[in-house]
């Protein structure tokens, strides 16, 4: 007698049941995904291409500096040059929507896991599972639940990309100096306040690394999403593979690379103190602090406080 575990059948029938029972829910979700996608795509597709290039270059200048600005202009001109602009915008919209939703889910989940050991114990293996399961496998139930189009692409991308966001958020918050958190507690701060004023700000570098990872993984899902009719650069890559069209494959593929570099550098620069914006901010903050200090010093000399200050060599 043959030994056989019909696990595939079980899972498949589970999704069939899900589809039958909650079709209204998935229909609604599909609508939301499509609307979001259309809105983001509209923002980038409506203005003339060169206007978008200039705006992106300005953003690059603010976020990271002039070298990145030049690089992003060259990259975007390349995409226009190989006639992949519309596809690139579709892909970008898909990445942004999926990454936004993935961040919105994974950061709170990571925070919850950091504050609750039981949650952490459950979340960890689930995340491992989702991340190691071959990405194509998500597509089958996603297709069944959301039908062909952008929606299954978005949902598969979210599921695939969430794991590092959750993990890095949890790690970041757990890694915050225990004494500093204790200081918050010792002075009687509410746990929510400690989270807001101490844990999240101090875990920010780690959380930002998680968001960066989410975006990069989302982009790597874009091509796979082409298989379910999500269109964009992925669509062209899939088409090129099936038609053995090397020229189209390279052009679409290189456009994905350009998009990836742009997104990675943008998100990696957040909170790192690079670019014009943070220079301005730093300068303004320093000016503000200097002004405050001057005000304190001035007030002190004109009206000395009653407290006697022991003279100490500081």
């Amino acid at each position, binding site marked *: 007698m043959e030994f056989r575990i019909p696990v595939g059948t079980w899972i498949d029938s589970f999704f069939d049941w899900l589809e039958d029972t909650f079709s209204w829910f998935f229909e609604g979700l599909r609508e939301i995904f499509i609307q979001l996608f259309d809105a983001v795509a509209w923002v980038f597709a409506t203005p003339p291409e060169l206007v978008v290039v200039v705006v992106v270059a300005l953003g690059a200048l603010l976020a990271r500096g002039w070298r990145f600005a030049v690089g992003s202009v060259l990259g975007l001109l390349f995409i226009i040059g190989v006639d992949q602009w519309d596809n690139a915008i579709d892909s970008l919209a898909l990445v942004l929507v999926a990454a936004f939703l993935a961040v919105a889910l994974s950061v709170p989940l990571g925070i919850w896991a950091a504050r609750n050991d039981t949650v952490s114990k459950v979340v960890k293996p689930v995340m491992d599972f989702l991340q190691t399961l071959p990405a194509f496998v998500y597509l089958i139930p996603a297709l069944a639940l959301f039908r062909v189009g952008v929606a299954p692409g978005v949902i598969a991308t979210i599921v695939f990309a969430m794991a590092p966001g959750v993990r890095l958020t949890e790690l970041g918050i757990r890694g915050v100096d225990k004494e*500093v958190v204790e200081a918050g507690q010792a002075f*009687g701060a509410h746990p929510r306040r400690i989270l807001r004023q101490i844990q999240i700000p101090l875990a920010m570098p780690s959380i930002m690394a998680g968001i960066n990872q989410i975006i990069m993984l989302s982009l790597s899902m874009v091509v796979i999403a082409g298989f379910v009719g999500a269109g964009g650069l992925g669509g062209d890559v899939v088409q090129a593979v099936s038609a053995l069209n090397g020229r189209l494959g390279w052009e679409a593929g290189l456009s994905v690379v350009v998009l990836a570099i742009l997104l990675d550098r943008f998100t990696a620069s957040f909170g790192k103190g690079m670019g014009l914006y943070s220079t301005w901010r730093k300068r303004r903050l320093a000016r503000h602090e200097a002004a405050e200090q001057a005000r304190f010093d001035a007030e002190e000399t004109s009206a000395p406080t009653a407290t006697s200050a022991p003279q100490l060599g500081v």
Partner: protein
Amino acid sequence: MNDDTIALRADGLYKVFGRHADEAVIALHRGTPREDLPSGTTAAVIDASFEVRRGEIFVVMGLSGSGKSTLIRMLNGLHEATAGTVEVGGESITDIPAKRLREIRRKRISMVFQHFALLPHRTVIDNVAYGLEIQGVEREERVAKARQVTEIVGLKGWEEKHPAELSGGMQQRVGLARALAADTDVLLMDEAFSALDPLIRREMQDQLLELQAELGKTIIFITHDLNEAMYIGDRIAVMRDGRIVQIGSPEDILTNPANDYVEQFVQDVDRTKVLTAESVMRKPRAVVHVGAGPRAALTLMRDEQLAGAYVVNKDRSIVGWVRDRDVFDLVRRGVKDLSSVIQSDHGAVAKDTALADLFIPSLEAALPLGVLDERDRLVGVIPRVTLLAALGGEPEAAVQAAPRPDPMPTAEVDQVLEAAVGAGATETKEAI
């Protein structure tokens, strides 16, 4: 129970980590040593009871692993006690809702941390104002108050810097200022100066004592450094393996160690800084009343075989001292009043003077060093031998000290020498 003089009371505190904590407490209560607990169960604090008086610096001293950090964290509920109670200002903080506990932490008890635990993304002034911010004080008001405290700890001019721009000592001043600004009665200090280098540490200790004298806070201070404990503590609790083995004043602990462990521990302490004149002084043997005549004084000195004596008023407050020769003269001349020969440079010291500060006065005094209480009454004397014996750790040894032989009277010696020269012993002269 609402004794006004008690700021904080801990009663039968236990902290057991791991499984079966409650059973472990029962076992420990019955006297099971903590090594015999099942593996995976760790008793950090065992049956700790003490009271801290208002305005006192209470030091908990122990080596790492003795449970002192766990103990201090139970006093403000950062660690929940497995058994026992803690009262702050007469109100129990064990088994109360989280909300009430947060209120007590805001109003009654604040904390200074070993590694400062400042918020790195905030300026000094905002760090100092943090406790007030949580108390819900308006920004204007809390900045004003934080600025005062910042100035008190000597950080004026650094208000708008970030912690990373400050040295360790300055960062801990911010930590101290943050706790002071919260204006709570009780201040917990967890190894607050241990991360600082020795010079800065001493400076901070002095500053803490100054602030304490000025503000009268109740301070519970954790340290592994016995010298620090002895220096700043009004009372010290010595912890070992989770248990408090002795509670007492620094002098108590030094002079009456409760067991071998404490005794070994205090061996390395610089006694001269801890022991005071009061703890080593002897009963004054010869004291002359100012009204007594020269004859009485001389008789007393002869009986006690002394070359001088202290002179005091009726209420034992010191007047000065007299030399036997001067009194001898008076008696010969038939003068009835001592006052003409009383010398006022008695050089006596206050009874809380540290031993270290007694050496020079002791050298300068003609008689055994006098010790005065707060009303200038002569309460004791410290002969030089006693001072030496105290340094050796056995003040009692002075009693058995062999008397130093007095030199023979010069006149007699001269007589004998002259006689020898007369006998023609010239070789002696050459030898000299």
